[in-house]
């Protein structure tokens, strides 16, 4: 199998779908000849033309609503937001319109759209271009939230997101764009709501998302040298959440650490921790659940400060040891 970068995988998923489904189109700022802020749509306008690779004005409110309107009338738009921070401007359309239309219309009407957007820190883009706000979206009934961590997952999950009849927020971590994995050439779909065990282990379960999946795997490799077997689970989609896989893992390991880049306070880690506390896995917990998340601070510009604002591999190693009473 050939290797693709995460970025290429996202592009391929869109291109393949657009070749066979006329209803699918992309709209977003600078996605045309420029190729998108991160180059995801590079080359696509040449293949699909400006009608389907729609360069928009800098109008997040309008393009998100336009996507809602187009979806409501039969299209399957993919909306690219240059930075996930800008979702604040698209928020009304995602939260008050897209998420609610099907339900508040009594099931008559659907909004099959995907909002793709790069998230996360690590690029020196500072406070307004580095956030991880997925918990906001996950909080709203009516929005599906996807956070792939690998190229393989990105392609399969994006196909599933486009096929979904409901609005999906598709978070792409900027630092994942260059990561590579084996990606099949043919189209395939990874069902939303199916977690992936990225590494099996018996001593402690780490549930990590996006770039933290990679950091957790690094930490797990380090801990293995000390005989500690870490299981790393990537939920891949926050909504719907594959609670079963996480519960079964925690029943096995008796210990849970949740790691995400988003600010810990009010972060999705709290949701996972609570889910376990409420589940049958509670009786198997042999240590308090730990959450690792970003510090409650805007992402700073200085590279050292930027790194310190979010969990590091060392933080994860230390958390595992603490959870195992091995300090």
């Amino acid at each position, binding site marked *: 199998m050939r290797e693709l970068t995460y970025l290429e995988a996202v592009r391929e998923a869109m291109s393949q779908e657009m070749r066979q489904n006329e209803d699918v189109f992309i709209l977003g700022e600078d996605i045309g000849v420029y190729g998108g802020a991160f180059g995801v749509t590079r080359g696509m306008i040449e293949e699909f033309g400006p009608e389907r690779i729609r360069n928009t004005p800098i109008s997040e409110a309008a393009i998100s609503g336009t996507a809602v309107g187009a979806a409501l009338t039969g299209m399957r738009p993919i909306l690219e937001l240059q930075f996930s921070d800008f979702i604040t401007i698209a928020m009304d359309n995602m939260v008050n319109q897209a998420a609610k239309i099907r339900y508040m219309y009594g099931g008559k009407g659907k909004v099959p759209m995907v909002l793709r957007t790069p998230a996360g820190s690590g690029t020196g883009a500072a406070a307004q271009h580095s956030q991880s706000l997925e918990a906001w979206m996950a909080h709203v009934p009516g929005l599906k939230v996807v956070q792939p961590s690998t190229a393989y997952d990105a392609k399969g999950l994006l196909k599933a997101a486009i096929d979904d009849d409901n609005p999906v927020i598709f978070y792409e971590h900027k630092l994942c764009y260059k990561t590579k994995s084996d990606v099949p050439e043919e189209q395939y779909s990874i069902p939303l709501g199916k977690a992936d065990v990225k590494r099996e282990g018996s001593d402690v379960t780490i549930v990590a998302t996006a770039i933290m999946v990679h950091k957790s795997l690094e930490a797990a490799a380090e801990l293995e040298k000390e005989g500690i077997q870490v299981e790393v689970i990537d939920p891949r989609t926050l909504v719907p959440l594959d609670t079963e896989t996480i519960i079964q893992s925690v029943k096995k390991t*008796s210990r849970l650490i949740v790691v995400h880049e988003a600010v810990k306070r009010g972060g999705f880690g709290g949701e996972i921790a609570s889910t376990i506390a409420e589940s049958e896995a509670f*009786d*198997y917990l*042999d*240590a*308090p659940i730990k959450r690792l998340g970003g510090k409650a601070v805007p992402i700073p510009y200085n590279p050292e400060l930027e790194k310190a604002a979010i969990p590091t591999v060392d933080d994860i190693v230390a958390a595992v040891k603490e959870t195992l009473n091995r300090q």
Partner: protein
Amino acid sequence: MAKEIFMPKLSSTMEVGTLLQWFKNEGDAVEVGEPLFEIMTDKINIEVESYEEGILLKKYFEEDDEVPINHVVGYIGEAGEQVPDTPPGESGAVKEQEDASDSRQPQTEDLAQQGITETTSQEVENEPAQTAETAEKLRATPAARRVAREESVTLAEVPGSGPNGRIHQGDVTAFASSNAAPTATPLAKKVAEAEGVDLNAVTGTGSRGKIYRADVEGAKQPVSANASTPATTGEKRVKMEGIRKVVAQRMLQSKTTAPHVTLTTEVDMTETIELRKKLLGSIEQQTGFRVSYTEMIMKAVATSLKLHPNVNVSLEGNEIVYRDEINLGLAVAADNGLLVPVVKNADQKGLSALTAECKRLGKAARENKLKPDEMAGGTFTVSNLGMYAIDAFTPVINQPESAILGVGRINEKPVGVNGAIELRPMMVLSLSFDHRVIDGAPAAAFLTDLKEVLEEPFKLLI
């Protein structure tokens, strides 16, 4: 209110205790009866257990700090309670008793205290209900609780290995699988937990298989050795601690403060051997113990000391204390180090009583069961290496005593007797004394008298 943890007075002569190690950290939960810290007194080292339950709020002293008796070492109380930042000195409980005679003083103090309580009542108000509840509640993980349910284990009996004494699943399973579980020192348990060593797989070298830290480390080493390097036995390093540390410090102290002089003399043991033979049966009948040379010698030492009060002394500051009791220390080699139980008023005990007492103390020492006061109050020590091929040695004084007798083996030697050479069972006695308080002549006189008593043991009857 936070409760004081104070340096206990463990013997009548104890004035300071040296903190050897803490078993708890600030913030840890402490149950009544849990070991808090280990101290060394002038006699022994001992684990001090908590009289209170709650959270260890403050530790004022670290390892190797000397703390006067009754001085506050730390506080136990409810989380968040305020305690002084600096050591408050002598324990208030004791001070109160002492001040009780003064009728006006306590009143004003009470008022002042009330004032303090009122101002802080706001903060405290929330806490009591909460901590009163948690004090009764165990800290145990859900998994530990589940396994305890399944295995019908009473959680309260399970020692928790986690932070704040939290009971983990492993604690319960270990407890359940071992009612005949090996006993281990708290330190050994800690080390075992930290190193991931299963205590069940460790052979304890202590009495009744009690596991010490060294055992845990010994049990762990081969595993890693197997894994990496085949069959090379590297040097073993064991941290000086516990009794070893105490012995080391005290020997150094003695050797560097007391100018040692050692006198030796050779004793013909013919008569003592005879006497022992004659007494064996009746003493055994009386006590169930066989009288040994050690006891015979102890008896002789006690008798002789009575005649030489200037040897039965100790140095306290600038004063020579002539001890009014003859309490004989008996050096015993226990598994984990040298212990010196004390036979009180040895001069007033007959050989039967002395034998019974020595046997009992020796056993207790070897089983690590000596009580503090059984090691306290000695005035003179006897160290017998006669069971080895040792003819003579220079013993180190067991301070605050001023003299010690070293006993060698009984060995048949040619001796001149009335112009002829005879083989006699000879034994060398070595008396080390502190020349600061005892001069050569009185020491020599004592040793001479002792030699005579042993050569003519009927003198014991005098």
